[in-house]
């Protein structure tokens, strides 16, 4: 190979591993990524996997970013092509100057069809088959062997990798030597046959101190544990399943009474999403902090119950880990396609509180916010994450907890308080803040009321009378509006120079938008940026739009759902908002945003 055609650059490139799913490659890829992370170099990992258990193509992408960017870069610099079925696609996806590593046990001369890349063949299968006898272990060891090969190419610290292998097999120590041997097979072969490391490689830094690699679902699960949730109901659905897995794991670890061995929580796997919503509503009505994790299809199924909880004012938290729709869509791909669905879920006039976390760090804090807001406003709260945040490991600041935190349980009348009042009416706005008092079953005879999804008066009694009905739903609207000042405020980053252009985004688009903006700023294109964090929108949102001539709304769906929500819920002129849409199902990358923003702003300037 000739080094002069190779891409240069330390700690700034993209590795992609193409594999067949079900072959155990996930742990090998995690090993690769964490090794770089442990060398103090920031990474961005994306698992691009099929809706399947075994045999279909799967990719794992690791961006090495010494500067600590949070989004994808776009492009591939080192392709580890382990799946013969996708060789062609994998070859094509390489950026000029890139390197393709493949298993040369079966040579593929056609790889030479691209002159702008370098091909590195390592006879992985041949070496592994010679070294290991059991068929299943050969498959796993081949994964370790490519990790070794990549380690040689990228100058990864083998001591770090060995340390991680020891951690991985803490419980099965006898597997360590074989794995170390497999690593060496790949490592040594590359060292002996190629010039390694490559011109682009990893160099240790100290930029991951105080950071962790964590996925959003795990972080949200921890948020539920720390926020004091005691009840979770769910129906398995990708990509939300790991949220409840996490809640179960940490409850088993942290919420079992040491003396009695009894649980201080309850998790029920429901028969479907309708039941999951009903279970949560029942538990919440009875005073437990309750939640349900699901995805868009689940929200569709839960919609009737969502209206019930809205109208009867039962605090409930719906975690929607979005995936590609409509219908079954692409269950293992990411999108921001439930923005409209969650804002107004259910029939009749319904409006909800929605939170938009942008990374696992915010998943942790916003899960707690969601539980508090639901009880304070006695209403459904939606936590709108997505597959990218929920299932990928992100590098974020280590999660911290303030032990002085007390849950905001909202207005719940105690036995004592009920004893002292004359009469309790469930839906009366006693304090003039649009939030009534509630009581929990079994507390006191005076607290009893009949919870109903049918028309009710402010006293909680049945009605079919127009004015009586309106009085209650008007208060519900006022209550929802008042939440605008209680939800997480938008984060606005202004350009160094006064900008006439603005950008708006939510959630997982944040990293790519931030990076694109930085790059544009360096090139003299100034854009102010507002990341909206919740719905209802507060006044800052409308002000930001009014303060700019044009505002680009970057989002991951076809129909510009966020843009349309802004048009419905603010008074800004329609022509001010322009969409930048990405909805392929892959996580957003900064190059896409950069290109779109550059073209859009240049067109404006020349127009």
């Amino acid at each position, binding site marked *: 190979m000739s080094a002069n055609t190779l891409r240069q650059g330390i700690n700034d490139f993209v590795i992609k591993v193409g594999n067949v799913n079900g072959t155990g490659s996930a742990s090998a890829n995690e090993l690769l990524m964490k090794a770089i992370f442990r060398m103090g170099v920031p990474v961005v990992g994306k698992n691009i996997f099929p809706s399947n258990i075994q045999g279909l193509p799967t990719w794992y992408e690791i961006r090495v970013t010494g500067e600590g960017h949070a989004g994808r870069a776009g492009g591939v610099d080192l392709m580890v092509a382990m799946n013969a079925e996708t060789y062609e696609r994998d070859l094509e996806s390489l950026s000029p100057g890139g390197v393709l590593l493949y298993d040369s046990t079966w040579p593929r001369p056609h790889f030479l069809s691209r002159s702008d890349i370098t091909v590195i063949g390592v006879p992985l299968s041949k070496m592994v088959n010679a070294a290991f006898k059991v068929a299943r272990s050969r498959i796993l060891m081949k994964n370790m062997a490519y990790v070794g090969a990549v380690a040689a190419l990228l100058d990864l610290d083998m001591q770090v990798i060995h340390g991680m292998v020891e951690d991985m097999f803490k419980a099965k120590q006898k597997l360590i030597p074989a794995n170390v041997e497999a690593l060496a097979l790949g490592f040594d072969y590359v060292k002996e046959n190629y010039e390694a490391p490559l011109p682009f490689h990893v160099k240790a830094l100290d930029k991951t101190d105080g950071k962790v690699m964590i996925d959003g679902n795990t972080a949200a699960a921890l948020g539920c544990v720390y926020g004091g949730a005691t009840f979770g109901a769910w129906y398995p659905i990708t990509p939300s399943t790991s949220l409840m897995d996490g809640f179960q794991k940490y409850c088993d670890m942290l919420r079992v009474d040491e003396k009695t061995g009894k649980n201080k929580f309850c998790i*029920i796997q429901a028969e479907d999403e309708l039941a999951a919503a009903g279970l949560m509503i029942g538990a*919440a009505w009875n005073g437990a902090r309750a939640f349900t994790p699901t995805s868009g299809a689940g929200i569709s199924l839960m919609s*009737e119950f969502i209206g019930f909880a809205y109208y009867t004012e039962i605090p409930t938290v719906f975690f929607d880990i979005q995936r590609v729709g409509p219908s079954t869509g692409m269950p293992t791909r990411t999108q921001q396609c439930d923005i409209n669905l969650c804002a107004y879920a259910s029939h009749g006039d319904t409006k909800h509180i929605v939170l938009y976390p942008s990374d696992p760090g915010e998943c942790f804090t916003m899960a707690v916010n969601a539980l508090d807001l639901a009880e304070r406003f006695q209403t459904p709260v939606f936590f709108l994450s997505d597959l990218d945040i929920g299932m990928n490991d992100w590098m974020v600041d280590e999660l911290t907890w303030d032990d002085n935190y*007390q849950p905001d349980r909202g207005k719940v009348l105690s036995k004592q308080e009920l004893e002292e009042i004359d009469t309790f009416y469930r839906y009366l706005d006693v304090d003039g803040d649009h939030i009534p008092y509630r009581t929990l079953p*079994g507390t006191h*005879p005076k607290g009893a009321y*009949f*919870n*109903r999804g049918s028309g009710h008066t402010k006293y909680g009694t049945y009605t079919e009378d127009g004015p009586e009905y309106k009085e209650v739903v008007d208060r519900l609207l006022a209550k929802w509006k008042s939440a605008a000042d209680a939800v997480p405020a938008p984060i606005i980053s202004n350009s160094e120079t006064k900008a006439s252009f603005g950008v708006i985004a939510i959630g997982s688009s944040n990293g790519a938008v931030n990076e694109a903006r930085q790059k544009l700023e360096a090139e003299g294109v100034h854009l102010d940026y507002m990341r909206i964090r919740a719905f209802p929108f507060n006044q800052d949102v409308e002000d930001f739009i009014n303060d700019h001539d044009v505002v680009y709304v970057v989002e991951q769906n076809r129909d510009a759902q966020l843009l349309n929500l802004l048009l419905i819920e603010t008074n800004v002129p329609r022509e001010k908002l322009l969409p930048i849409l990405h909805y392929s199902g892959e996580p957003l990358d900064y190059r896409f945003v950069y290109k779109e923003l550059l073209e859009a702003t240049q067109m404006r300037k020349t127009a």
Partner: protein
Amino acid sequence: MSSFIKPKIRRKNEPVNDLGLIRSDYDGAMSTLCAGCGHDSVTAAMGRAFFELSIEPHRAVKVSGIGCSSKTTSYFLKEAHGNNTVHGRMPSVATGAFAANADLTYIGVSGDGDSLSIGVGQLIHAMRRNVNMLYVLENNGVYGLTKGQFSAAADIGSTAKKGAVNQLPPIDPVALAMSVGASFVARGFSGDREQLVPLIKAGLMHKGFGLIDVISPCVSFNDHKGSTKSYEHTYKYYHKSVHADYVPPSKEIKAAYDDGKTMDVELHDGGTIRLRKTDKDYDPTNREHAMKRIMASGGSDEVLTGLLFIDEQQPDLHQRKNMEDRPLNEIPYAELNPGAAALKELQKGFR
């Protein structure tokens, strides 16, 4: 229109229960169902059962779905919390509520439309989980509130008011309950209070899921000739198989086991359900045996009633979930917060 408040009248020498409450303390709002509706008799029976068991009204929870029967939860126990949920989904709300607080007494009221069509899935799963509640299924074979469509409980050959003949096989809630492991299965008749009140009491005191299928004729849409859920038809083919009485812990039990017609089942609270059997050989504690008898009855006109199956040993949802005794809402946050140090410690695995 608002709901009606029933006037409270207290008579001289009115009987009081152990709490000093009178029967009308267990009343609710005035019923708005049709005159003669079977459901009103069931409502009265439920009120009486709670009264006789001396359950504090505010420690009871009433849940229901949608339909005529589901409306009735507001017609008794006005001091109990009620939750009139969405169509066919009461079991999930009841299950969640029970999970959060096992200390209250739960009664669900539903109908054959709510339970056997739109809600059949949820009913089945609540039974599988053995939620500690009594589920009263007021069964009239017809959709009353939407004016007379057949329900899934209608028998083959039963006719609608306007003459249509039902051709689909019925879902028998009792057979269904047996097949999915319900731990208390009974059938009653709104026209037989002597049998129904004790059945409800036994079902309330049973630890686990109790289902009572109550034949409760719809006078407006399914009480005509040709209907198999009419008063006339039910009276004609009515068969009382096993009568159940609840005997509280304090009362002395006088047993007469030898005749094969009496049988006692001990409950978790120390009380007993005393069974008096018409059919000497019927064993309501043997699922296989009971199932056979129920299936045989299903193929005939017979309306087999009484406590048809009971299993007091099945762990309920709370036990299966290994939950602690305190209701979830009574566990102080200090006990739920693992603390900042634990968070720091567990994140070592994320590096």
